């Protein structure tokens, strides 16, 4: 079969068995493509199991830099007999099937090319140790793929050398295994095949990291010193990354002791309780969790809101409700976080789009929490949290100082400054606080979840309660001016249509907008980065006849939030909802929006009016 050559634009999917050591080999493959200057986006697709069950790793190679998911597989690396039928069926016509031909298989489809490499036989010949046979099988197939796809073996060699810098003994055997696969493919196949990687210059200075690690590094830079957490997929790697980073970056050189405390709590209630206790006592504290954890934290979050205690919560969202699909992605905790707890509550939410913003917001969340004296949620999801993604390099301004907010000092108290814990001195709704132990006789107060007056004295007086609730609402208005503003990108020409999106939907939305523009459907784009919504969000909605709200949940949670908070006519906001647990794709968005608008309908605003 002869196929048209496709350079730097195809999808490779690895079908593996969980626990077989394929993850690092697959990452090596993705990184080699990036090193050749070609954007590549991997995604882990894994069921909720540890060992022996199927797992997939999908790499989208896109010289035009599209980092969103896309349907279809052009090359299947079928290493898992359990999923063979499914994997073969999912190949696009004209695609390639790469498999371990130690036990030859009958050609399963006529419209694909089958590439068999006897991986097990090669390994059995070369290695005697069973673990080595398993591990090096993965490296051998990466070598084979390099030959097939025209990936420079020198790039793989340098990556392997870097990876095992600390365990030098492992470099030579890994290099040999890679070469074994490379040479075998060169000898037995007509290399390269029609899918090819060609050196380009489209990666630039971008870095390759997962959002959870980036958020954890943001917490380190943001000055977090207390992390209390409870293991839950897909957030676990955030707390673990924080532990890893603090070990290197927060060690007191003279003593080897740590400038951070990390506690694995007994549950999420205790995690948030510890965060609140630490925040009350003046440390920057956070927890990392996912939807079920947010549910468990509800009562405490109300306390933190009402008692005005800084806290940072990283919620790496997964498909709910209940245990739902714990290893699948969604944006389904927006409502649960925005109005977390009983009574009238509202919380600050941040929506990072990629690892870069996970880092930026991960640090900024602590400034916001202390400035506003309230919980701040950073809403990641599994797609950006647990997958490595190409993103802008991290940067830091060394002149930047932590914003510790309104904390009254011993000197100010001594000088006779009036201290009312819940007194709105500046008119922004944010009162002053004191930290425990500040002054021998001034500034002590009692923190409680029950109502109190401006001087923190317990009261059930209705007026005092209402004044306090109104001040809290005023504080939330102040938050609008402090949180990250939305990012707007208008179409080349004026249009009646807009699209609002947030978080991990970004790359798919950007690509969809390009696809739609090519069909004549023009969209102005607004990426929301925080709640409460900035006035620009409401202006954007007012300026457009229809606004598509693109999100990854069933109930259009952000759309509801916009309607509630902005008093928007629901008819103006059109739902575009993807919620099967897979990452949203450009094709899906373009299909939904294109279907609603219809090309005939699209007349630029200026021409429509005389």
């Amino acid at each position: 079969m002869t196929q048209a050559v496709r350079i730097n634009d195809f999808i490779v999917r690895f079908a593996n068995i969980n626990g077989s050591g394929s993850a690092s080999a697959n990452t090596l493959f993705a990184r080699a493509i990036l090193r050749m200057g070609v954007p590549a986006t991997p995604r882990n697709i894994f069921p909720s199991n540890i060992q022996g069950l199927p797992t997939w790793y999908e790499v989208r190679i896109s010289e035009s830099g599209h980092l969103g998911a896309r349907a279809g597989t052009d090359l299947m690396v079928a290493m898992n007999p359990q999923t063979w039928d499914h994997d073969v069926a999912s190949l696009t016509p004209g695609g390639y099937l790469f498999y371990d031909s130690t036990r030859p298989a009958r050609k399963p489809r006529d419209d694909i090319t089958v590439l068999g490499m006897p991986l097990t036989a090669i390994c059995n010949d070369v290695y005697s140790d069973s673990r080595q046979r398993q591990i090096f099988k993965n490296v051998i197939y990466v070598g084979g793929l390099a030959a097939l796809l025209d990936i420079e073996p020198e790039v793989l060699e340098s990556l392997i050398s870097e990876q095992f810098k600390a365990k030098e003994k492992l470099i030579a055997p890994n290099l040999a295994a890679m070469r074994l696969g490379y040479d075998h493919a060169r000898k037995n196949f007509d290399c390269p095949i029609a899918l090819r990687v060609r050196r380009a210059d489209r990666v630039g200075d971008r870095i390759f990291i997962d959002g959870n690690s980036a958020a954890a590094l943001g917490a380190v830079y943001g000055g977090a010193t207390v992390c209390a957490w409870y293991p839950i997929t897909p957030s676990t790697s955030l707390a673990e990354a924080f532990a890893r980073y603090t070990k290197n970056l927060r060690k007191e050189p003279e003593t080897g002791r740590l400038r951070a405390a990390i506690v694995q709590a007994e549950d999420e209630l205790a995690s948030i309780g510890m965060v609140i206790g630490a925040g009350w006592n003046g440390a920057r504290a956070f927890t990392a969790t996912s939807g079920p954890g947010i549910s468990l934290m509800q009562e405490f979050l109300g306390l933190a809101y009402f008692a005005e205690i800084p806290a940072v919560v990283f919620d790496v969202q997964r498909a709910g409700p209940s245990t739902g699909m714990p290893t699948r992605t969604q944006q389904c905790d927006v409502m649960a976080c925005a109005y977390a707890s009983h009574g009238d509550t509202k919380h600050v939410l941040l929506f990072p789009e990629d690892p870069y913003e996970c880092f930026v917001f991960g640090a900024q969340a602590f400034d916001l929490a202390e400035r506003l004296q309230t919980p701040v949620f950073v809403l990641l999801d599994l797609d950006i949290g647990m997958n490595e993604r190409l993103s802008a390099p991290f940067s830091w301004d060394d002149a930047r100082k932590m914003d510790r907010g309104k904390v009254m000092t011993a000197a100010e108290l001594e000088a006779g400054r009036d201290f009312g814990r819940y007194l709105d001195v500046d008119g922004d709704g944010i009162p002053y606080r004191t930290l425990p132990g500040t002054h021998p006789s001034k500034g002590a107060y009692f923190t409680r979840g029950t109502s109190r007056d401006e001087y923190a004295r317990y009261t059930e007086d209705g007026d005092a309660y209402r004044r306090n609730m109104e001040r809290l609402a005023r504080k939330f208005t102040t938050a609008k001016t402090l949180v990250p503003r939305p990012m707007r990108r208008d179409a080349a020409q004026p249009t009646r249509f807009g699209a609002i999106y947030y978080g991990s939907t970004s790359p798919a939305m950007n690509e969809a907008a390009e696809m739609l523009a090519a069909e004549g459907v023009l969209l102005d784009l607004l990426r929301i980065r925080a709640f409460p919504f900035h006035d620009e969000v409401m202006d954007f909605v007012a300026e457009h006849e229809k606004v598509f709200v693109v999100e990854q949940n069933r109930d259009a949670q952000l759309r509801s939030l916009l309607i509630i908070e902005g008093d928007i006519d629901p008819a103006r906001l059109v739902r575009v909802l993807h919620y099967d647990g897979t990452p949203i794709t450009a094709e899906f968005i373009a299909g939904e929006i294109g279907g609603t608008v219809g090309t005939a309908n699209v007349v630029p605003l200026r021409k429509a009016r005389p």
Partner: protein
Amino acid sequence: MSFLPKPKLHHPELATNDIGFTRRDYEGAISTLCAGCGHDSISAAIIRACYELSLPPHRIAKLSGIGCSSKTPTYFLGAAHGFNSVHGRMPSVATGAYLANRELIYLGVSGDGDSASIGLGQFAHALRRGINMTYIVENNGVYGLTKGQFSATSDRGSTSKKGATNTDAAIDLVGLALQLGATFVARSFSGDKAQLVPLIKAALQHPGAAFIDCISPCVQFNNHVGSTKSFDYIREHNEAVNRLDYITGRSEITADYAPGEIEVVVQHDGGVLRLRKLATDYDPHDRTSALRYLQERTVAGEIVTGLLYVDPEPENLHQRLNTVATPLNALEDRLLCPGSAMLETLNAALR
């Protein structure tokens, strides 16, 4: 119910302690609990203990959950920051506060509903983690604020004021604390100030997880015949294993007891515990025998009180986590933020 400030008038000759404070400087607002409530006696004991130890009141952080007992931190140490948190969750808040600043003295006050029912999990985990705090449960075996329901420490077979019989087994917090690794475990009685004050003093100075189960009869709902937490019942069944005199490192030890009656325990900070033995065969350094003794006496219908277990060299959570000596809430920016040059190195490793 409202905030009742106490008049700040002092007797001109009111005695002062080593740091110049009077007893009144350790008081809080006027209690709003029922007249005769055992909890008020515990508040008074806390005030006396802090005064006698000459602790600067503002260096104490007092934390509680929800319930009658958890209201009491308002009624002592008015110059200290207090945190009345969520029902059953004081231990986690105290843990976080302790992580943020290891230099304050943490006093957690809770009740039997707060710690043995809704908060049993957090009670257990705070003790096993070695939070350097004094954890007092004001144990009356009943829910007061909701008017008289049994709590998890109510004995099986005891009756409520309305006449209902408790059919569930009781949780013994002292037994749990011993099992879970608390390094100071005591039981006392709100009606026995001579026993309670030294125990609180010793617990406040203990550099690890110190737990005091203080039986504190509820005069309103659990002080009737048929209750096993009434003043009369406790007085009749109280079996103190020892009497404690707490002496700080600065004080001289005067021997006014016959040899063999007294055991002197030197704590890590130099503080001295002088134990006068009442049960001659009781060893407060042996967890296993303490548990056995406790269970035997419980079966015999006795309520064992006194200092039941102490480890003079406890290990606390900060030691286990290997955190720096400076409180984490006092670290400056430059010590926390690795800076742009380090970030460049990190970026380079991610390409």
